[in-house]
Each structure stands twice: as C-alpha cells, then as structure tokens.
C-alpha cells in the first residue's frame, strides 16, 4: 500500500495529466500544406478540409472504401493555383501505417506512370503526382494539361513532402 507521501505524488501526477489533457496538450499533427509562396509560383487557394475515416464518403463517396480498407485514419485536402492559372488539388491521406499508403500507391500505378524520386516512392502522370512517405499518401491532381504541368506538380509535391 502507498503511504501518505506516495499518495501525494500520485495525486500530483494525475493533476498534471488532467491539466495537460484539459489544455489540449497532445502530439502535434503535421500540417503538410505549403503556405502561399512557399513553393515558387504556388498559391494556396482554399482552407484545408479534414475528413475522418468515417466521414470520407462526404468527400469522395464510392472511392472512400479503398482507403478505408487500407486503414485510412483521416484525409486532408486543399486547393492550389500555379501562377494564377493552373488549378490543382492536394489530398493527404494519413493511413494507419506505411503499408496502407504503399498499397494505395501500388493500385494507382499503371505501366504508363513515370517513377519519381519522392518520399518513399512516387509516380507521376502528365496531370498528377502520387507519393507515399511513412503513413502518408499524397495525391496531387491538376485540372489542365499544359507543357509545364508535371514539373510544376512535382515541385509542389516536394514542398508537401518536406513538411511530412
């Protein structure tokens, strides 16, 4: 049994824990979205929206299941614009582990994909870049195919990768 002095210590530790919990002191989530200008030419044009796994259908009903099956925890998304012209969307899927992220990346890869050196593994098409780093899967899609689209997306992808 604890003596009075030990009880004081236990109660003190519990009190500290309660204060920390009450003030929201917890592990800081990574903010993977580069601010406007952080990557040359790219401007962040929307607020970041976040969807818990159970709400992912509200973002992409019908596509959500493959992420849920791979262990998605949450999904964040934000819109960007390059040189005030090229529009793109950045989706960051936080999976339960790296295997989940790699599983989705593998599904996204077809023979016409270009392999790129980004994070743990990455691929690019003319208008999209997908890569994984640890438990994160990042997908960036542009809405126009211009001669510089792919390179611009890869630059933005590096900006995201550096924040993960």
């Amino acid at each position: 049994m604890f003596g009075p002095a030990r009880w004081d210590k236990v109660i003190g530790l519990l009190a500290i824990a309660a204060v920390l919990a009450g003030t929201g002191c917890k592990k800081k989530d990574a903010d993977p979205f580069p601010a406007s200008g952080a990557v040359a030419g790219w401007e962040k044009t929307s607020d970041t929206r976040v969807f818990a796994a159970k709400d992912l259908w509200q973002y992409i009903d019908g596509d959500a299941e493959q992420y849920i099956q791979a262990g998605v925890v949450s999904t964040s998304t934000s819109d960007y614009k390059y040189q005030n012209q090229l529009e793109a969307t950045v989706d960051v899927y936080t999976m339960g582990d790296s295997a989940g992220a790699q599983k989705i990346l593998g599904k996204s890869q077809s023979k016409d994909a270009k392999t790129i050196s980004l994070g743990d593994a990455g691929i690019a098409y003319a208008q999209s870049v997908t890569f994984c780093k640890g438990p994160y899967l990042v997908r960036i899609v542009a809405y126009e195919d211009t001669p510089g689209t792919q390179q611009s997306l890869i630059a933005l992808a590096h900006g995201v990768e550096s924040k993960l």
Partner: protein
Amino acid sequence: MKSRRDFLKDAAAGAVLLGSSAAADKLALAAALNTHAANGKSKVVVARDAALHGTSTQPDEQKVMNLLDKAMAAYTGRDKPLEAWKSIVPANVLAGKVIGLKVNGLGGKGIATHNALTLAVAERLQQAGVKPGNILVWDQNANFLEACGFPINTDPSRVRSYPSDSAGFEDEESSWGVARIRVTKILTRECDMVINLPILKDHRMAGVTFAMKNMFGVVDKPFTLHAGNCNPGVADLNCIPVIRNKVRFTIGDAISSVYDGGPAFHPERLWYPNAVVVGEDRVALDYTAWQMLASKRAEAGMPTFEADGRPPLYIATAADGAHGLGTNDPQRIHLIEV
C-alpha cells in the same frame, strides 16, 4: 407503329407473364413515364460533336447548347428546341412548378457535370416558360455543387442552387429492398419534376455510374448502398416512389469521362466522348453508358468490367420483374446516334 396504349398493354402483359401483378404495375408505370417510346422500344439518343472542345479543356458553351438542341430534336422529333422541351416537360410544370436539375460533382471539378450543359438546360427551360427561381440545381453537398460551378444561391429571382444536406432530409425513413435511407427534402418537398444530369464515369465498385447511380446524391447515407458492387442498392434506391416518379428525364453528360479509377478524377484516364445521352428509361440509359465505357476500355486495352470483378449487375437487376424500372435488352432499346 405501335400506339402508346398498345405498348402499355404489351408491357403489362409481359409483366403478368413474370408472374406478378405488382410487377405488371411497375412495368406499366415505367412505360407510362417513358412517353417517347418508339415501337415499344425505349428511345436513347447519343448526340456527339467532335469539335465540342476545340483546343480548350472546357467545352465551347454555344456548341454545348447546339449539341443539347440536336439531342432533344432527335429524341422528340421536334426540330424547334422550345417545342422539344414542351413535349418533355408537362404544361402544368412549365407553368409554375419547381424543376430540379440533379447534377454530379462527386469527382471534383475535373469530372463534374459541365456547367455549360446545366446552364444550357436551365436556359431552354426558361425560354419554355419556367421562371428562373423555379429551377433548382442541386447535388449531395456544397462542395459537389461548387465543383459543378454552382455556389449556393437561394435568391428566387435567379436559378437557385443548394445541396441535399443543407435542405435536410425527411425524418421518416424510406425503404425498398436493401435501401433504407432518408430522402432530401429538395426531392420530396421542393421539386415536382427532376431532370437528371449525371456524368458518365467508371466506378470502382458499381462498374459504371450514370443515370441510376446519380440518385445516391439525394439520400442521407449513400454509402449504405455499396454492398455487392452496389447491387441491388442502385436498383432498390431507384424504386423508392419519390425517386421513381419524379425523376422523369435524363440528360447525361458524356462530354468528358473517366474510363478507369472512378468515381474520383483520374486525369490520366480522362476521355472526351464529346456527347450527351438523353432519354427517359434510366435502365436503357445505363445500359448504353455501360456499352460506351466498355468500348473505350477495350480500345485502351483494359480488362472488361467482368474480368475486373465489377460488372454493373445493378442494371439487370433494375430491369427485372421485381424492379421494372426499364429495359436492359438491346432489342428493346431504340438507340439513335446523331
């Protein structure tokens, strides 16, 4: 030429052979809603314009209007657009009822119902006598609607647009088969008639998403209908009376499409059929959509939907005697390509 009355009799007789008076009622209802059936066949028009896009990723607005007019003329047999529209929309609806335009922006702005097409439909409806505020463009949520180019607008002097979740859902659950959902009040209370404006896409579960699948955006929990590759979820949902009866016409957007990886936007699988697909028989429309996507996938060297483990079985289910939503029999579909 077989009269509409004869067709109704044939449809009812066919249903009786299926062994159910309820099935007869359903087939008769499907036929009654299919006012432009030809020779007992469901008419589907695929209108194309190869020059729709020019050099831009967005289609030319005037060309989209012209394409819509061409499709409606071929469907109704009336060359003048207003006459065509008046043969589709009942006079009492034109005179003062609310017409819903159910768009689809689930895939984001890269693969959403084209704004130019929705605006073209809204413009023709107004020219036919519908007040702007009696046209309501909607989708599941504000982001999907925005992807289609429609921010929320409740000003009754203009075409209105707001989503299912803002309008709210009926407290009472609707059910048919596996579908146990609550329907948006936009459909139950606001609209007297709905024109369906889906966009043609591959769907990683259902195989194909087009006319019937677009109704997932009018209910509170569409994800509950995904089991079994959305079969029988899609068919059952479309049997819910308010969906079955109010969604009367489809102007399907096949201006652009994704032929793999849908329903999300995959630009590497983007394709430009440069077409609109119109009709009343939602099953025949989905059958036609399936053939279009299957043809494109074959051309691209991709596996068939069957080989990929996701044939759109819900289409046959929707056509069966229990559902009676239309026909998936190519012999009973009068396909007109213009």
